[in-house]
């Protein structure tokens, strides 16, 4: 019995969409998370505490609230949404909106993972690179970045997993349009809302688990590669 038989077309779409949303959310937020983590770890600037607080917000707020705030800012009539609309960038009712919601919900996890590893990098190695002629950006690219790969990997996994499970903010922001914005959690939620839907929900839950575990295993394997790359002969 193949997965294709086991799932309805709509469920199959939800699986595919969730995969896409989670991957895009994790990867697209990486540069921002990297920059934010670096700024928080290394720079002292007036807005430091504010930025740090802001990053944690999606964790603190109930997801619906985050979704609602997203709707207010990134919706077509939202301040940012209306602006971006001029350039043809639309989030509302699109899978891109689901990715945005997931990325924002996962952002604090990613930033923290990366920040922790940045703080663990020995600044003396970065100094050594500078004495060899590397400018700040080159030091970052050739020394800091390779050394924080474990944190980046951890951040990506956390973000991917979180994005796979994100529901509240996503459905509030982009609602549930089968084939367009219906992610796995939305589909699961629908099933749980009807008496006797637990079986169907359970099936989708198993799929979500399988996908996320694969991602986790892959990341562990990569991390082990990285580690042996450093200690290796």
């Amino acid at each position, binding site marked *: 019995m193949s997965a294709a038989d086991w799932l309805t077309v709509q469920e199959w779409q939800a699986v595919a969409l969730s995969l896409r949303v989670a991957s895009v959310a994790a990867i697209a937020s990486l540069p921002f998370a990297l920059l934010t983590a670096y700024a928080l770890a290394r720079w002292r600037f007036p807005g430091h505490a504010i930025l740090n607080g802001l990053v944690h917000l999606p964790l603190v707020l109930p997801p619906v609230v985050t979704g609602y705030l997203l709707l207010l800012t990134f919706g*077509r009539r939202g301040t940012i949404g209306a602006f971006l609309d001029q350039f043809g960038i639309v989030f509302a009712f699109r899978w891109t909106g689901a990715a945005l919601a997931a990325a924002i919900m996962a952002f604090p996890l990613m930033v923290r993972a990366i920040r922790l590893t940045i703080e663990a990098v020995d600044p003396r190695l970065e100094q050594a690179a500078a004495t060899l002629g590397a400018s700040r950006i080159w030091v970052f690219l050739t020394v800091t970045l390779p050394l924080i790969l474990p944190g980046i990997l951890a951040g990506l996994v956390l973000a991917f997993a979180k994005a796979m499970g994100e529901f509240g903010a996503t*459905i509030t922001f982009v*609602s549930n349009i089968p084939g367009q914005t219906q992610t796995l959690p939305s589909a699961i*939620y629908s099933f749980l*809302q009807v*008496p006797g839907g637990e079986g169907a929900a359970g099936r989708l839950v198993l799929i979500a688990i399988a996908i996320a575990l694969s991602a986790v295993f892959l990341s562990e394997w990569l991390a082990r590669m990285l580690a042996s790359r450093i200690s290796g002969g």
Partner: protein
Amino acid sequence: DVVIFAAASLKNAMDAVAADFTRETGTKVVLSYAGSGQLAKQVIAGAPADLFISANEAWMDQVDREGLLQERRDLLGNSLVLIGNDPRATPVDLYSGTDLAAMLDGGKLAMALVDSVPAGQYGKAALEYLGLWDSVAASVAQADNVRAALALVSTGEAPLGITYATDAEADPRVSILATFDAETHPAITYPAALISTDDEARAFYDALSGEAATARFEQFGFDVLK
């Protein structure tokens, strides 16, 4: 104390009813609001609820099948409306020829989850009854509850939506374009049930049909079923 599990959409009305009851009797009332499905499952799992008021019959039936109910009755009714986000919009006629798609103009029709959340199920049934479902099915944005659907319209994200009349009336940023006829969808009923054998609980259960409660429910736009 009386502990009441009630569908979240009843919050305003039930808060008022409970306050009245406490003032009258001195009995403290504790209200726990969540989705009907969540509450039903909790009751089944042994939650310390004295009363359960569901937003649809299906979940109440589910609890009933577990043999947990002392008594149940249909308490409230509601009606379904088509809302728009333009406050100056003129009312429309809802019939099989209404060109909803044209009114949407490429936008979305906001509803609650059409297969699982009651408001969505009623809305879909009504549109099907009117033969309009197929023309808009692809444009339906389903929210996880009625309030979220309402929010989509009131923020202007979706030009049209289908919600309960109670929700729509309370939001000044949306206008009611039409009310669905009662025959277009199954009756919207909020069943209430007594779970505990406690006297105070029964007193509250009875008071739900009293004059004071009836006035409160009507104040918030519900139909009180006799």
